[in-house]
């Protein structure tokens, strides 16, 4: 620095300004915390079990939790469980991939190109306002009762949150950052890849998580409307045969699967968005 000739009093302050150190280890070791949120559910389960065993709760309507677990164990032993689980997962997976792929293409297009937005968005918003279950009869008529109609229904459910998330994400990209890209003569695909894509990622990932949630909702609808396998079938089967433990087992499995897949996406989001400067960042998610 050539500040030797400046005789302003501020000189001493300037040279004395401490060279800041880089922030220390990014993550301090987090202490294990007693999961407070588990207390209430466990207490309720215990109460439920006690009341069921004491005969206070009618066993043909609300069987004990242990019985529900035994039902799951029984299904696992015969191998039926994996059949049901696998098929439901495959349906959600296929619907999710299909729906989010279509949503990604259309959302990116309408977010990026105002012309496409004016052309397509009103139509899509209109379709979005149709309660999605209203499609069921039509899909069955068009595509039959088997897999196609189910996967398409799930895809429709997944589509809208992903589409909306991505479109608003692309529209919301900071013009100032786009200008930085332009200043370095990026355009077209390079600009999309190096500026739009990362800038949109947070909104897109939220859209994907919402979409996956709806996917799980719609797989239940799809499997209730007619299936001979899958967790949704177990629901109907339990009702038909008067076995509430089967229904509760299916509900429990849905909860576990939904939570697990969402946690997977949440983990992926945290990894991809480490750079984010938000209130929720840095672990307290």
């Amino acid at each position, binding site marked *: 620095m050539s500040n030797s000739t400046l005789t302003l009093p*501020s000189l001493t*302050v*300037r040279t004395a300004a401490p060279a800041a150190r880089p922030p220390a280890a990014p993550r301090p070791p987090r202490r294990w915390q007693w999961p407070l949120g588990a207390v209430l559910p466990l207490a309720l389960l215990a109460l439920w079990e006690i009341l069921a065993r004491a005969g206070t709760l009618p066993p043909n309507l609300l069987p004990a939790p242990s019985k529900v677990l035994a039902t799951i164990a029984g299904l696992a032993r015969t191998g039926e469980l994996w059949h049901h689980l696998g098929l439901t997962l495959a349906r959600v997976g296929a619907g999710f991939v299909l729906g989010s792929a279509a949503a990604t293409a259309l959302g990116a297009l309408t977010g990026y190109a105002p012309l496409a937005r004016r052309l397509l968005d009103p139509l899509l918003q209109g379709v979005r306002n149709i309660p999605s279950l209203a499609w069921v009869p039509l899909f069955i008529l068009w595509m039959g009762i088997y897999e196609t109609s189910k996967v398409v229904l799930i895809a429709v459910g997944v589509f809208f949150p992903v589409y909306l998330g991505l479109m608003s994400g692309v529209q919301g990209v900071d013009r100032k950052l786009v200008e930085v890209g332009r200043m370095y003569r990026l355009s077209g695909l390079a600009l999309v890849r190096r500026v739009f894509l990362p800038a949109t990622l947070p909104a897109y990932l939220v859209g994907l998580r919402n979409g996956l949630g709806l996917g799980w909702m719609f797989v239940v609808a799809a499997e209730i409307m007619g299936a001979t396998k899958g967790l949704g079938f177990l629901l109907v089967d339990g009702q038909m045969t008067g076995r509430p433990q089967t229904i509760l087992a299916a509900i429990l499995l849905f909860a576990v699967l939904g939570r697990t897949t969402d946690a997977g996406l949440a983990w992926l989001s945290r990894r991809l968005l480490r750079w984010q400067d938000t209130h929720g960042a840095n672990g307290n998610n």
Partner: protein
Amino acid sequence: MLRIEHVGKQFGPQVVALHDVSLQVAPGEIVALVGASGCGKSTLLRIAAGLETPGTGRVLIDGAPVAGPHPAVGFIFQEPRLLPWLTVCQNVEFGIAGLPAAERTERSAAALARVGLSDFAGTWPRQLSGGMAQRAAIARALVARPGLLLLDEPFSALDPFTKMDLQDHLLDIWADDRPTLVLVTHDLEEALVLADRVVVLRSRPGRVHQTFAVDLPRPRRRTAPDFQAQKQLLLEALGVAA
């Protein structure tokens, strides 16, 4: 280096941001643009950068008309505008992605060292203070070794100490590579410390009002009587003489 010829720019039917502005900047020269808020300084700089098209007239860089951002031109914005998803080092390398990796690393390391951020190469922009972020932005602009560097109030958001520090940095860099600098500022002392020439703009419509050659020897002392006399002249030209 930079020739602005009869540039005019209108926003909508009402706002005439610039009217018939002409300006020539020689290679290696430092020119400061000053003027009241809204007189079109940013617009002029953005037109020179190719980020905005002139309504009338044209801009030439090295004799060639500007049609979009030019590879030899760097721009430092008022805000750091670091890309939050890239580390400081990756941000600095953003503009030289086409170079071989080894050269990229070498250049970004040098640029970061130059602005005193070597220890922060791997951190995210959110972990930087305002002054540090602006220094990173300066490194990003310098790493591409622009022949012409346009600066739009680059230090205005910084505290006086950091500001003077970075003004010195800028002069050091200029002394080494002699890039042409065109800088917009509201700070008359900054203009007088840095510039060879100060151009005073007037608003409604934005136009060149007066040009001052600053022939004080470098490095310049803010307290020197000549310096203060020049400042007084500038204040008068801006119509705010006290």
